[in-house]
């Protein structure tokens, strides 16, 4: 590591402004080491991707941050306080949407608030706002089985937004939707990161997706899982969403990541 003053100051600054910080986390399933001594910081207001080949423990790490799994060792700080379980400061977006099939869109979106005991009229007002925001206006009374995969994930996203958590945890949220919907989602996600003052942690196995949406990309390598590299695209945020995929920095980073991951793909 370069020991210049500017860099040291920069490090101090980012440390103080981490929404989530993971230090020395290990997770064992019996003999199997899923995560080993993993340390990683998630800067506030930014989107960090966890990228790696399958089986590298990226979803495990996300679920540990969510409080759904307990780490064998190490600790996680969210806004400076240690994680002991699920909390109101984090909201989860699921790969398979995890909607209640028997409940309408509005009840699904408001379900996080319902579980927190918010009164019905109040939570439906909030839900309506986010249903509009994700572009599902007019579908409030529909049921999940009447919606396409992309629309279902919009419901999942609106549910996570409506509890107004600081940290949004997204587990391969776009992997179950078709390619065109996925591109639209990625563009919308960029707008969301820019407009909502939230910290996003985004698990993906798509290199292009990670480079496209991220402020910071953590490359995880498997068996046992560790952070192999952290990449911070610098010039992509200022670019127009339509031209990012033609940008030379974007293409270079995609190539670089592929080169480092290639040997781990069976």
């Amino acid at each position: 590591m370069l020991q210049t003053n500017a860099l040291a100051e920069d490090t101090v600054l980012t440390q103080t402004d981490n929404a989530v910080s993971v230090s020395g986390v290990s997770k064992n399933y019996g003999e199997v080491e899923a995560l080993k001594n993993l340390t990683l910081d998630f800067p506030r207001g930014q989107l960090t991707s966890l990228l790696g080949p399958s089986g590298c423990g990226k979803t495990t790490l996300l679920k540990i941050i969510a409080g759904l799994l307990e780490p064998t060792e190490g600790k996680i700080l969210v806004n400076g306080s240690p994680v002991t379980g699920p909390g109101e400061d984090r909201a989860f977006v699921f790969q398979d949407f995890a909607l209640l099939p028997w409940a309408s869109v509005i009840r699904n979106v408001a379900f996080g608030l319902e579980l927190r005991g918010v009164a019905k009229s109040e939570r439906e007002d909030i839900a309506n706002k986010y249903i509009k925001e994700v572009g599902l206006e007019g579908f409030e009374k529909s049921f999940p089985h009447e919606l396409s995969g992309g629309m279902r994930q919009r419901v999942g996203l609106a549910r996570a937004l409506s509890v107004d958590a600081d940290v949004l945890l997204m587990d391969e949220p776009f992997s179950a939707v078709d390619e065109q919907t996925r591109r639209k989602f990625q563009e919308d996600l960029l707008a969301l990161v820019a407009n909502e003052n939230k910290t996003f942690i985004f698990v993906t196995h798509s290199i292009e997706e990670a480079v496209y949406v991220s402020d910071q990309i953590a490359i995880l390598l498997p068996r046992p899982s560790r952070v192999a590299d952290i990449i911070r695209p610098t010039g992509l945020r200022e670019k127009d969403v339509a031209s990012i995929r033609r940008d030379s920095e974007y293409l270079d980073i995609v190539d670089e990541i592929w080169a480092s991951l290639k040997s781990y793909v069976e």
Partner: protein
Amino acid sequence: MQIKGVRLPGMSSLLLWGLLWEIVGRTGFSFFVPPLSEVVKTLFEIIGTTAFQKALYETAYAFCSGVFFAIVIGIPTGIMMGKNRLIDELLLPWVNIFLSAPLTALVPVLMVLFGFGMKSIIITTTLFAIWIIILNARVGVMQINRSLVEMATSFGASPWAAFTKVYFWAALPEILGGVRIGIIRAVKGVIIGQLLISLVGFGALFELYSNNFLMKHFWAVLVVLFALAFSISEFLAYLERRVSYYAAKR
């Protein structure tokens, strides 16, 4: 089923079998098979009698109580077994044993324990119905989508809220299936109870009519019993279809 594009209502085949019954009855094939029309005529004759109404009341009372206990004990037990490994390990062998056990053989034991009255009949009915309800609720809960459980947990659901707002509804298609089969078994249970424990209700009527070779009366009561069981079962099947739209998508 459709014939030449005309959709037949459910159970139309019953008409055909009813016709066959009538024909066989009219040929005088056997003393035990009177024509269906005679049976129906007898049915309307006895349906107004106090003996019949008393029997209907006694049977309905035992049946409804038995089914009630089977449901309110069975569903929560099944859900707990599906959610808690320890409870499951403890109870599953017993549930399986009782599901396949010849419960009729247990009735004398119940009589010793609970006497010769209504209490034993209700317990017999419950015992016939409850095991399949437990097993179905258990299976329903066990195959709830894992991420639905994680969703409830991650949004901070209390155990009670998770139970009433997520697990119960997610398992509802299987639970209703179990209740439907349980109720059909309970019909069997209540009649066996009434025959073996104390001669009351429809059980007493069956005993009375068959001992006196009143076959028309015997069949009339059987038709009533079948109609009741069939209606309840069809009603539950209807409820099941109402929730089945999401059964495949949990």
